Every structure is written in structure tokens, then in C-alpha cells.
């Protein structure tokens, strides 16, 4: 997994509620058997002006999202599409469970904030949409337009992202316990 520690970038602000994985990438594009290039199909039917209205959208690595982002299907293609488009950090007041797990596994950081700081960041973006935001995973802070917003990511996920830890490798290192569990039943 690619490491992620500090991201400094302009921000996309697309805060519609309940954006689902069918909107992120429609099912008809899920027939390919590799992982590359799904960025071309990101939001292809939805075409949110908040994203495609920005000429440099693909250079913006951070997106402010709305509540329950990534709801619906378990398709990891949704994260592959966001990642391939250029996003490394997603900030919202809530994410759907499976989407959040899929993000972590692809080196995409999801930051869940309380509604108040989430709203503050959106308000700041509205005033200065060209400003750069700094997301520092090591220190767990967001710096943006004079705001300093702390966030927490559980320590395991943080280590995974900071060190590019391979989760499968982590599981397989517990081979002894897995074998013992299998033998016990």
C-alpha cells in the first residue's frame, strides 16, 4: 500500500448527502478485471459541477464530502475511481462502513469530523476555494485558512497509512493462531 503522511493540496467541496457508490461509479463500468483507470468513470452520470466545474479538479487531492458518503454497494471500484482521479483524503461528518474500510485499504484517508468543524471547513472553502489545505496524519491536524482542526484516526489505521503497512501480511503473521483456531473446531 502507498504511504500517506502529509497532503498539501487545494480542495474539492462536494457536500451532497448520501452520495452512493453507484453515483461514484455506475455498475456498468464494473466489468473490467483490473484496477487501473477507473478515474475516467468517476461521477460519470452524476457530473457534479462542484467537481467538474474546477479546471484543476484532478490535481486536488482532498475532498470535503457530505454525510454518509460512500453508501450503498461494497464495490471497491468506487475507491479505485476516486484514487485514480487524484483524491487521497476525504473529509466528512460520516462515511458508510464498507466504503471507509475500502478507502483505508487503498491508501485513501477518510477523516470523520463532528458536524461543527466539518461545517467550518466548508464555510472556509466557500470564501477561499483556491486555498491549499494541509492534512497532517502524523499530528492528526487539518490546517486551512487559519483554522486548525484536530482529527483522530485509530492508531492501527494510522500506522497502516503512515507506514504503508500491508494488512494481509499482518494477518498472515498470525498463522499460528489461525491454525490453532481451525484445529479447535
Amino acid at each position, binding site marked *: 500500500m502507498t504511504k500517506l503522511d502529509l497532503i498539501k493540496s487545494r480542495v474539492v467541496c462536494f457536500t*451532497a*448527502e*448520501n452520495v*452512493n457508490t*453507484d*453515483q461514484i461509479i*455506475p*455498475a*456498468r463500468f*464494473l*466489468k*473490467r*478485471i*483490473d*484496477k487501473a483507470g477507473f478515474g475516467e468513470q468517476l461521477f460519470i*452520470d*452524476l457530473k457534479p459541477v462542484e467537481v467538474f466545474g474546477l479546471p484543476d479538479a484532478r490535481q486536488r487531492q482532498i475532498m470535503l464530502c457530505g*454525510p*454518509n458518503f460512500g*453508501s*450503498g*454497494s*461494497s*464495490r*471497491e471500484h468506487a*475507491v479505485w475511481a476516486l484514487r485514480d482521479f487524484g483524491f487521497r483524503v476525504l473529509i466528512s461528518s*460520516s462515511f*458508510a*462502513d*464498507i466504503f471507509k*474500510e*475500502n478507502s483505508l*485499504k*487503498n491508501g485513501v484517508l477518510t477523516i470523520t469530523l463532528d458536524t461543527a468543524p466539518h461545517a467550518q471547513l466548508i464555510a472556509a472553502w466557500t470564501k477561499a476555494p483556491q486555498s491549499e489545505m494541509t492534512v497532517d496524519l502524523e499530528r492528526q491536524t487539518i490546517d486551512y485558512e487559519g483554522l486548525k482542526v484536530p482529527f483522530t484516526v*485509530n*492508531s*492501527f489505521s494510522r500506522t497502516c497509512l503512515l507506514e504503508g503497512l500491508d*494488512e*494481509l501480511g*499482518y*494477518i*498472515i503473521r*498470525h498463522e499460528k*493462531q*489461525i491454525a490453532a*483456531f*481451525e484445529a479447535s473446531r
Partner: protein
Amino acid sequence: MQPKTLYDKIWESHIVVPETDAPAIIFIDLHLIHEVTSPQAFDELRERKLPVRRPDLTLGTADHSIPTTTRVLVASDDQLAYDQVKKLDTNCAEFGVELFGIESDKQGIVHVIGPEVGATQPGKTIVCGDSHTSTHGAFGALAFGIGTTEVGHVLASQCLLQRKAKNFEIRIEGKLREGITSKDVILFVISQIGTAGGTGSVLEFTGSAVRDMNMDARMTLCNMSIEAGARAGLVAPDETTFEYLKGRPKAPQGAEWDKAVARWRNLKSDADAVFDRQIVIDAATIEPMISFGTNPGMSMPIGAKVPLSDNEEMRRALQYMDLKPGEPLLDHPIDVVFIGSCTNSRMTDLRAAASILKGRHVAPNVRTVIVPGSYQIKQMAEAEGLDKIFKDAGAEWREAGCSMCIAMNADKLEPGQYSISTSNRNFEGRQGPGGRTMLASPLTAAASAVTGRVTDLRRMLKS
């Protein structure tokens, strides 16, 4: 001893390494795979030179991208879909995984065939790269959808990194009224708690209305737990569950069966177990439900009026659906009726549709597509003569698959068309770009097919 919920019990009996700062490592008893979310996971295994650790606990089928007009896959019809299904064939062959491929007599929608062959059993942990894996919770199994990376983890290690979820009880007491199905119940639940109402939680459905449901109905209920944002849905196993499983090919047989049932009888929440959240619903108050918007939470009783668009999301949804606040949905013209999907494609659903369509004809302007959940269901339905009822009524009768639920095969809506669909998602474009989906039960779908308009099925029960 501290009282436990059913979820607590299944969770605890599958811990390989307990949760610390790191998530727990839990053991997976059954891993279902299909063509769409597995190819990249098998590639990962190849790259790392790893085998499938437990092919005996892994089972594959093709359902999402296959046609349902035929059981033969033709490359020239859809090269990408053809390659994807062939890839599943070669991956399963190479790694020694049992596959119910497109030509198998056990093929079907992954969440239909698991229970059908008896692989889905109480107390198991079950995963699949598909969010509707929650369906299997109807048997008292902890079942949930995972992403492709996790499919790789389970293939390689038979384990998964997981954090414990919260317990959320949904108690439905009393008797459902005539014409009300578990589809109406789950749409009602989601309309109450919202599409994120279950986030981070496992729902346990309890109460006399749930006990009264047959397994098909319970599967419909658990299937849409994910539409409430929940990690999984559960119904504690009982005689209905055991009766369903007995004698199925992958269920325990003989003395093993008796031992299994004895074990399964303990799989229920303790009387004084504490849930993080509970709601109680009076079954008798539930009406036939229909969705009017672009997520399943935007559902209402069929006789109600489209609510006010009090926020941007609702405004956008109504614009997409071309509906106005205050407008009734009853009698709204429809173009397509789809009866099928992992939500509503089982015998109970087909019999319900047939009970309405028998001796009637679908409206001339409506295309009605009926897609059984598995090849075995197709055979059973035909043995009962349901296919004849459907065809005489002017409906299309198909082979098993996901079909128009997901529009990654040839079945889709045209832009602007309205469908009444027994599937699970009314998202924008879910049934085809620009298509407008109204979710409902098989009874409501069949009744509406007859009139060509959104119809209260109770009208037809009496005629």
C-alpha cells in the same frame, strides 16, 4: 455471566486474535464469490504466490453481469462481461474453488444459492464481495459485504480484520395485515431510521411478526439491512430455520444434523441482553410501501403524497424522479415492472406475483420482466406452473441472475422510464442511466403491472 446478544455470541466464537488498538482477526466460515468483485483479488494471490487457504469454505457463482435471456454466454454480445465470467471459471479451476457457473444446475444469485444449497447456516460468519451479503443473516449467521481487497484477505487467510459493531434491535410485534410483506416492513424501517440509521451497527430483527415470517421473507428483511447503512442484519434461528435447512445438500446430515440443531438452539440474544439502540414497531400499522425518491429511505405508504422537498437532497431527488411535493403516487403511470433480485426472487415472491397475475394480463404499455433467483427456483416455479401464469399474463420469464437490479447486463431502463422494482436500490441510474425506480413488494409490482399504474394491491385481493 454478562448477558449477550446473538451478535455478541457469534462474534466471540470467531475471534482468532482479539481486538486491541488493531482490529480483531476473525475467522470466516463461508466465503461466497462472484465474477465482479473477485478477479483483482485472485490476481493479488497470484502476485504473492499464495493459495486459497480454505477452498472447502469458498463457493462461487456467476450472477451480476450474465444475461438472463439465455444460459449461454456469447463473447460477441458483451466482450467485457464474457471475459469477466470466464475469468471466474479459470480462477476457480486454478485455485480449486467450487463454482456454480452459468451452466450449472445450482447457478443463481449468490445470496439465493447460499441458503438454497444449505451452505448458509446459523452461527456462521459469512462474507462476500457484495453488500447484500446481509441476506444470510436471516439464518442467524453473521453475514456482511466486503471490498475486493478483503476478498483477497479471506481467500488467502480465511480471516478478516474487523472491529466489533454496535447492537441495534428492531422489534416488530403483532400481525402484518393482509397484503403486507417483509419488503414493506423493511422499507418502513428504513423510512424511519434513514439510510445511515444503522451505520456501525448490526441489526437484530425480533418480535412476533418476524417469528411469523418464513425464511424467504426473513431473507428479504435482512437483505436490505445494508440500505439502512447497517453492517449486517440478524434473525435468531428457530424451527422455521431448521425446517428450511433440513436435507439440503450442504447442511449437516444424520447424527451431525441433530448435533447442529442442538447447538443452533442456543443462538439467540439473552433475555436481559443490552442493545445499544432499540426501536419497536407495531406490525399492524404498516401499509404497502413504495419509494418515491433516490434512496430507499425516501419511501412512504403507497397511498401517501410525495413529501415536501425540505432540503437540497430531496429537491434533487424529486427533480430526478420528475415528481412534485404533494403529488400522490397512486395511479402514476409506469413503463417497466421488474420482479427479481436478491431481495425478492424466491418462491414466496414468485407465488405472490402469480397470485395477482393469475387470470389477468399486464397493461399493454408495460414491460414486465420476472427473473427467478436461481436455476433451481426456476425449475420449481415451472413445476408449479407459475411460468405459464406469467407468460399468459404477458410477462417475460427469464433465467436466473441479477438482471435489471443493477443494469450491468442487457436488462436496463431507458432514460426517463419509470419502473416498479422489487429490487433494493432506487439510486439514480441504478437500473440504467436516467431510469426512475420505485421500490415495492412483489404484490405491489404485480398489481401495478396489470394496471400500468402505481396500484394498491389490496384492491386486487378482493376482486
